[in-house]
């Protein structure tokens, strides 16, 4: 039997399995973001937008679109990737993964790849839903896709780490609920941080989510709260941090192997 250098059949099997799980619940997977986005537009777009017509020269309804997409990408990426690896741990089917000839890189590639595919798909659905409510013009489409994919991969890696770290379903919810949601709402998803008093603006700059949303908003409108290079740099730093943590998990077998 010939030894394999890259287990492409293994990666494809996991990737397809994860996507099949998503497709089994396609209706709620698609309906949920569509309904949520529509509600955000009703509340923020119609109610607040009626009083705040423009931010940085952009109509308020359009201004919140990148933030809305990022909010969903953060939450969906963490949720999909953490569930994907936590579920086999919970049911015991992880034994098959650990006993298979797949490397740590291949496992991460398959799980994170599948979760990121779902997140990017959902982001595009939200974008399509938003375009029903407000006219959307994307100034830098290449960078939009780049930011979207990088952010999806980064947060999927983050979710993968949470899925391995979590000992139960409650712990799985802690990080998204207590950290990511507040940071996103305070990260300029629905406002420009320039609108904050100077002291709070300085505090906000310690929130990593600010850089992700700002960079993504730049790809739409060409204007941003912080320099786009800094945003890209921060996204990459977060990505590399998550990669290093995943590498450490597999090297030590942390909460995967006894």
């Amino acid at each position, binding site marked *: *039997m010939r*030894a*394999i250098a890259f*287990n492409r*059949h*293994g990666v*494809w*099997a*996991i990737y*397809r*399995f994860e996507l*099949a*799980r998503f497709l*089994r619940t396609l209706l709620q997977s698609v309906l949920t973001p569509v309904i949520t986005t529509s509600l955000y537009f009703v509340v923020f777009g119609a109610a607040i937008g009626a009083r705040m017509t423009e931010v940085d020269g952009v109509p308020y309804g359009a201004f919140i679109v990148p933030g809305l997409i990022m909010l969903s990408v953060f939450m969906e990426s963490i949720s999909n990737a953490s569930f994907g690896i936590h579920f086999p741990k919970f*049911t*015991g*089917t992880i*034994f*098959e*993964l*650990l*006993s*298979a*000839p*797949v*490397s740590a890189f291949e496992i991460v590639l398959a799980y994170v790849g599948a979760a990121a595919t779902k997140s990017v798909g959902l982001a595009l659905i939200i974008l399509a839903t938003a375009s029903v409510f407000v006219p959307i013009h994307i100034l830098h489409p290449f960078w939009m896709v780049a930011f979207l994919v990088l952010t999806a991969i980064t947060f999927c890696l983050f979710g993968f780490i949470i899925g391995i770290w979590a000992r139960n379903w409650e712990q799985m919810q802690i990080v998204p609920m207590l950290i990511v949601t507040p940071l996103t709402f305070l990260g300029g998803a629905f406002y420009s941080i320039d609108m904050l008093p100077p002291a709070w603006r300085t505090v906000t700059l310690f929130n990593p989510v600010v850089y992700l949303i700002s960079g993504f908003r730049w790809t739409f409108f060409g204007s941003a709260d912080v320099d786009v290079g800094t945003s890209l740099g921060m996204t990459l730093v977060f990505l590399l941090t998550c990669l290093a943590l995943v590498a450490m998990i597999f090297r030590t*077998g942390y909460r995967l*192997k*006894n």
Partner: protein
Amino acid sequence: MRAIISISGLTKTYASGQHALKNVNLEIREGEIFALLGPNGAGKTTLISIICGIVTASSGTVLVDGHDIVTDYRAARSRIGLVPQELVADAFETVRATAGFSRGLFGRAPNPGYVESVLRDLSLWDRRNDIIMTLSGGMKRRVMIAKALSHEPRILFLDEPTAGVDVELRRDMWALVRRLRDSGVTIILTTHYIDEAEEMADRIGVISQGELIVVEDKIRLMRKLGKKQLTLHLQDPMASIPAGLEAWKLALNAGGSELEYTFDTNEEQTGIPALLRRLSELGVAFKDLHTRQSSLEEIFVNLVSERKGFRQ
């Protein structure tokens, strides 16, 4: 016969401090059925889990078909199929999909024909489109075996394969294991059912408290450690064994109505003719007699309890 698995100096100490394996050395021969016996917590599952890559050894080496399980894990693991003790399959998947998934996971290109033959062999073909959670426990056990066989392994680990299955399925499994062995697959099974090992295994290993205490050909083990007993049903019950029978290892049972003589099967002379002559001389009459050989279960219990006694 060459060794397909070579284990040397294998130890495992869990973070809790529990010494699950202590310097285990073992060679599994290609094409044999090897039964690993031991009481609960003896280290059987830990040993299997290390070989399959699920648990990390504290020290020692394991070679699978000449490939180190750590440095050359891809080659080692692709040769192994594992059927774990628990029925853990993806509840929402179909039977055919989960077998195809396992094949891909182990690096094999899709082969619907092969997967079909495995499912047919396990009487699962008619249930191929059923969701796993709708299957009975016995069918789920078959699915676990189908998953383990889907990538055409050369070595199959069966961890308590017939735990909780009915007699018919148990017989089916035994037949399947023999067919697999005949096709060249090496089988390593752990079991609590000693009769299963007695029925199927070529060689037997007994593990107790993390140590491999015996590895022996089954027939030789039973001959070496097995005892035979001759029971004489006496015409008239006796209060004690009469004088003049000290040369034989006798016991009086059943309220003095049975005289039991235990002898070693390895000895050239069983001593039975001489004993019968002596009894006749002493006027001890018996109405019936029978002999029995100790089962593997008795040998196993003796081995493990001796070990425990030795430890205490």
